[in-house]
């Protein structure tokens, strides 16, 4: 079974703090993704990565950065947290962009509150 884990289920931070959200997958997947989920908006893609040290912007990258130093780990960084970044953050992974039947496997999510 694919397992995607995220470092925290709940996180409370103050405005201006630097925040790190960590995601680890254990199935040697090439692709990793970060989404935020807000009521009524579904999931919106922040950043994704097809390979180590590689990153691509999604639809809403502003205020975020990412790091992928190892294949299994994909970190989301909020350089200076703001209240409008309060959200549920979901990490996902998939085997390869070249697999027709591939689906994304999601972690349990991190609910971040910025005060």
């Amino acid at each position: 079974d694919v397992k995607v884990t995220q470092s925290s289920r709940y996180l409370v931070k103050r405005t201006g703090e630097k925040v790190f959200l960590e995601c680890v997958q254990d199935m040697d997947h090439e692709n990793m993704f970060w989404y935020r989920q807000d009521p009524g908006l579904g999931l919106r893609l922040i950043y994704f990565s097809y390979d180590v040290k590689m990153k691509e912007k999604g639809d809403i990258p502003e205020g975020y950065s990412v790091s992928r130093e190892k294949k299994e780990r994909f970190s989301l960084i909020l350089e200076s947290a703001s209240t409008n970044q309060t959200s549920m953050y979901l990490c996902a992974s998939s085997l390869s962009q070249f697999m027709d039947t591939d689906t994304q496997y999601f972690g349990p999510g991190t609910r971040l509150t910025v005060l």
Partner: protein
Amino acid sequence: ELKVEQNPLFLSMQEGKNYTIYCNYSTTSDRLYWYRQDPGKSLESLFVLLSNGAVKQEGRLMASLDTKARLSTLHITAAVHDLSATYFCAVDVIGNDMRFGAGTRLTVKP
């Protein structure tokens, strides 16, 4: 920019009834996914639809894809309480980069 629209966003059903959730998308794609999310939980993959006319069924759920109409449907047959969840469709953009609909929150009442 790809837009993915689901409707309805909220659906309250009686047990035993049938209903359909619709997913429209705005650009050409031949890969569509359906996910389920239970409250407080993460997303679980339900179906992957890969071509025009694709139909997949699992239990009381059946998903179909019409790529020409850019439409997918998730049909619920004889709903039961255990199907209460939020259902998302997602459309493949490039490679495995997906865009999600807003989700349909389904409540099945006894």
